[in-house]
């Protein structure tokens, strides 16, 4: 498998197949980050398109020396998510009667099932619900570290904050998430 930086170079030479490969390779990452942050599938989809459009237009400015392609991609995604968050903040405040995000999606956490995959997707929905309740700073830190698997150095680059801040946000984010899940009755010592 060619490294991303090579695909980028091929894209810039006009090879459409290389761009297609980059998109196929990274759509899941971008979409998941957007979904985890917004809790809304339609918004996540629209934002993913926006991310790739921006990547596409600014591809020539990417330099491998500045870090991994995925770090750059994550930065672009994160910046668009924050823009989107700020843009839609007023709408969210005005419909505060509704639960944040799409309520139907959160209630899709029915009774427990014994098999592991069912309980994993159930937990996934519960985590999603809890994520909507924590501040965007803590939310993005936890998503990047624990759901997207970035290391501290990469998160530092994406968020443009010092390492100490990254660590403390991840720590506080996990604590808030843990408390919310406890309140929801979702704990490690259930069956």
């Amino acid at each position, binding site marked *: 498998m060619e490294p991303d930086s090579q695909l980028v170079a091929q*894209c810039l030479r006009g090879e459409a197949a290389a761009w297609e490969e980059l*998109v196929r390779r990274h*759509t899941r990452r971008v979409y998941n980050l957007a979904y985890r942050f917004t809790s809304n*599938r339609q918004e996540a989809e629209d934002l993913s398109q926006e991310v790739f459009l921006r990547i596409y237009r600014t591809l020539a400015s990417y330099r491998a020396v500045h870090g991994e392609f995925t770090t750059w991609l994550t930065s672009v995604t994160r910046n668009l998510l924050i823009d989107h968050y700020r843009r839609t903040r007023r709408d969210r405040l005005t419909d505060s009667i509704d639960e944040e995000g799409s309520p139907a999606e959160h209630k899709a956490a029915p009774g427990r099932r014994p098999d592991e995959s069912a309980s994993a997707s159930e937990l996934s929905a519960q985590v999603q619900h809890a994520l909507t309740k924590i501040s965007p700073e803590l939310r993005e830190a936890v998503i990047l570290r624990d759901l997207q698997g970035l290391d501290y150095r990469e998160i530092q680059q994406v968020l443009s904050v010092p390492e100490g801040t990254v660590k403390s946000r991840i720590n506080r984010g996990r*604590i808030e998430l*843990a408390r919310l899940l406890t309140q929801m009755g979702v704990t490690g010592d259930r069956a």
Partner: protein
Amino acid sequence: MTWTCIHSEERLADYLEGQLEPAERAQMEAHLAECAACRELAAQVRWISGRLPHLPPEVVPPGLVYRILEATSGTVGRKPAITWKTVLAGLLSPRFALGLGTVAATVFILFQALDINPRKITMDNLNPVNLYRAADQQAHLTYARGMRFVNDLRVVYEIRSRLEEASATPAPVPEQQTPKNAPAPQSEQKLKNDLLRHGSSLTAAITLAGLGGGL
């Protein structure tokens, strides 16, 4: 320093990842041994941090990759190269032509108003008393002439803009099946048309200027 619940929370991630110095670790463990709330919190955080990396990813909606590819077909990450053609096209844009025309008209009006022959500007021309007198005589006539010239230019500009809008909107861009970096095939022809069109509007402007001068 007494180790409180606040310290436990602040150092929790480091503790769980085994990053605490032995002294801090001992204080943390002593606190956890006597504080049930912190013990429960630590257990819950340990549990959820262990589960998060293994949660199943969201399924990407069908067609998303295709929609992204569709939205991004065309020139990848390239700014159009600056060539004499693009520079010329810029100079001949209707907005620029109008600007240029207006400046020319202003200079023309000024010289007319002041009764100055642009080829023979003397110190006498620039004497404020002479300037004022000349301006007063010529002002009405020249203002009317100049305004007509600018208005004519504006008509040319508006016609140009309409034409551009008309040629831009109705032709739906055919689906680009080859998202190569081909520098848009229509540009060559478009430039020719532009040159012809601009050429004629410039000619019109020059003719008007000539007429204005002849009046």
